[in-house]
């Protein structure tokens, strides 16, 4: 039996192992040494590595992001944690104007090896300002890498790869995935930038699920299997750079691409993926494309509205079914899944 860890434990182990291996890795952010340890992802690290390497910050996201850039220029490898992705907006100037551009703008003289961890919320009324994904905004900017692992295995491998990367990497964590458990090797390993994974095989359509929508796509696949539709599911893992080839190969086979983004679809990573695949297959006729994402509005707090805001396994399966069978009336039941039940406030 392979050893199992939770997503949270996998992040913690990756950080621990990298800090143990490389004295240049430092970890900071609001609450990293807090009694709640950022959901457990920094547990034990303040004690093990001391307050000079693991430290809390004041509420100063903008400055601390610039601090990370300066540290990186001096050869450190900072990890800056935001308990919510929404707060990375206060760091946007430093991320977009400095971290992303530094290496290019200074003629290859100053690269920025830093990791920014940002958490996406959902459910329990996280609402307008505590639920945003925003990764598409950052993936838009050349010079930034963006990764959104969905399993404990990839949580560890991607974080190690991000820390070792010589460029700024936005590491996207979905709070609903923190609950997942799965096999995680003890040894150190990298899940390298630009490596997508086929997570389930099928011949009838290709579903690409980004971040938490990967899990929802696998659930939708289950619903579809019950009516005889075999969906292939792909986890892109890295959103910038994107592994286009794996998706193109699959779509060439299935002739149908449904991308489910965990972000607003317009100008999003999902829409870009659809466009890129369509371009790559532009000589071929009869391929269907579709992109689902958040409804084009602010995330509402009220549970009834929030339910309508996000794609879910039933709505994803219904969309896929329509693509395969041309019938838009079929819809599987909306089921309750363990993490949405166990995810309760306060926070």
């Amino acid at each position, binding site marked *: 039996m392979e050893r199992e860890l939770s997503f949270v434990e996998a992040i913690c182990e990756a950080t621990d192992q990298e800090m143990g291996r490389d004295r240049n890795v430092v970890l900071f952010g609001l609450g990293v040494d807090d009694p709640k340890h950022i959901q457990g992802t920094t547990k034990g690290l303040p004690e093990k590595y001391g307050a000079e390497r693991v430290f809390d910050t004041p509420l100063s996201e903008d400055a601390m992001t610039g601090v990370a850039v300066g540290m990186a220029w001096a050869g450190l490898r900072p990890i800056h944690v935001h308990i919510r992705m929404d707060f990375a907006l206060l760091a946007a100037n430093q991320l977009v104007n400095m971290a992303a551009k530094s290496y290019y703008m200074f003629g290859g003289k100053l690269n920025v090896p830093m990791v920014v961890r940002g958490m996406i919320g959902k459910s329990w009324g996280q609402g307008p300002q505590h639920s945003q994904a925003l990764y598409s905004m950052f993936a838009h900017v050349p010079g930034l890498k963006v990764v959104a692992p969905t399993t404990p295995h990839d949580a560890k491998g991607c974080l190690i790869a991000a820390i070792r990367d010589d460029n700024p990497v936005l590491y996207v964590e979905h709070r609903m995935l923190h609950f997942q458990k799965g096999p995680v090797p003890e040894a150190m390993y990298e899940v390298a930038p630009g490596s997508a994974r086929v997570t389930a095989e099928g011949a009838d359509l290709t579903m690409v699920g980004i971040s938490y929508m990967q899990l929802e796509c696998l659930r939708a696949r289950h619903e579809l299997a019950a009516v005889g539709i075999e969906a292939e599911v792909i986890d892109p893992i890295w959103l910038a750079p994107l592994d286009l080839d794996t998706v193109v190969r699959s779509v060439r086979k299935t002739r149908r691409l449904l991308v489910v983004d965990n972000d607003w679809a317009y100008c999003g990573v999902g829409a870009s993926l659809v466009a890129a695949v369509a371009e790559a297959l532009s000589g071929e006729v009869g391929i269907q494309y579709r992109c689902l994402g958040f409804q084009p509005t602010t995330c509402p*707090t009220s549970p009834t509205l929030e339910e309508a805001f996000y794609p879910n396994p039933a709505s994803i399966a219904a969309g896929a079914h329509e693509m395969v069978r041309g019938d838009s009336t079929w819809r599987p039941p909306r089921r309750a899944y363990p993490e949405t039940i166990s995810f309760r406030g306060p926070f």
Partner: protein
Amino acid sequence: MPPTSSRESRGAGLPARDPARTGPPDPETCYRLLLLIRTVEEEIARVYPSDVIKSPVHLSIGQEAVAVAVCMALRLEDVVFGTYRGHAAYLAKGGDLDRMIAELYGKNTGCAGGKGGSMHLVDVEHGVMGTSAVVATTIPEALGMAMAFQYRREPRVVVSFFGDGATEEGVFFETLNVAALRKAPLIFLCENNSYAIHTHLHQRQAQSDICRKAEAMGVPAFRFESDDVETVYARIAGAAARLRADPFAGPCFFEAPTCRWREHVGPGEDFHLGYRTADDVRRCQANDALKKAAGRLTEIRRAVIEREVLGAVARAFERAAAAPFPEAGTLLDDVYKEV
């Protein structure tokens, strides 16, 4: 825009208070407001485990006195900007009780139609501007509104409430600077409860004298020794009168010590986390403004007010529970204002 009339109205059938009072704060109003806020938040804490409120709540139990003292010195047409820990300022300024509870319940009848929740309360008619979940974000909005009032020569005062943690953000300093530069009719009000989540002020600020920061940016500052309602009220009433008399009188800054009795977010206590002790909080509880306010009234008056407040709160929760959830079909309403 908030209305310019000075007609005083209060939510939930609570009687009006005299908005233009000078002299010491009316003890009955003071007790009523303190009791209202405490009762509402204790009821929130009580029902929270049943999941009728499915969103984060940041309670101000123990911190009510500052909001009450400040808001009693304001008029209906004055405006307050609060934070995600905004129940006290909302209610003290006269925000509608029924609509607040319905908002927490995610209901159609909520002050934001259920779209905002506890962290985004709003009651424009009563001068409560929408609150933000992102620390320090509404400090510049308060300045913007003060500058608009100044521009139109409206004798209206804006108060920006924020916590000690907010004084670490860049936007705090930027706003202080511009407010001083523009001599804006704005009152900065820092509710210093010593903590940002679980981290003490001294672990976050090398120079933790917050008033000195304000003064360094050119804004005169005053630190209250305690959250005593009468003292805070008198100072704020004076400052407000000065700003109403002269829209170019310039901003002022107040820091009030206060104490959060419950956990940072959620209904419970959090002494098990070890960042502070139960004794720390017990010391604050010995100075409970609500108890002091109760002591200033006769038993009969107190009983009348209690019955009134408890009844209003109970009705607000009943109405919220009975109200409908928003229809899924309204999800895309209000993304843009359509003409």
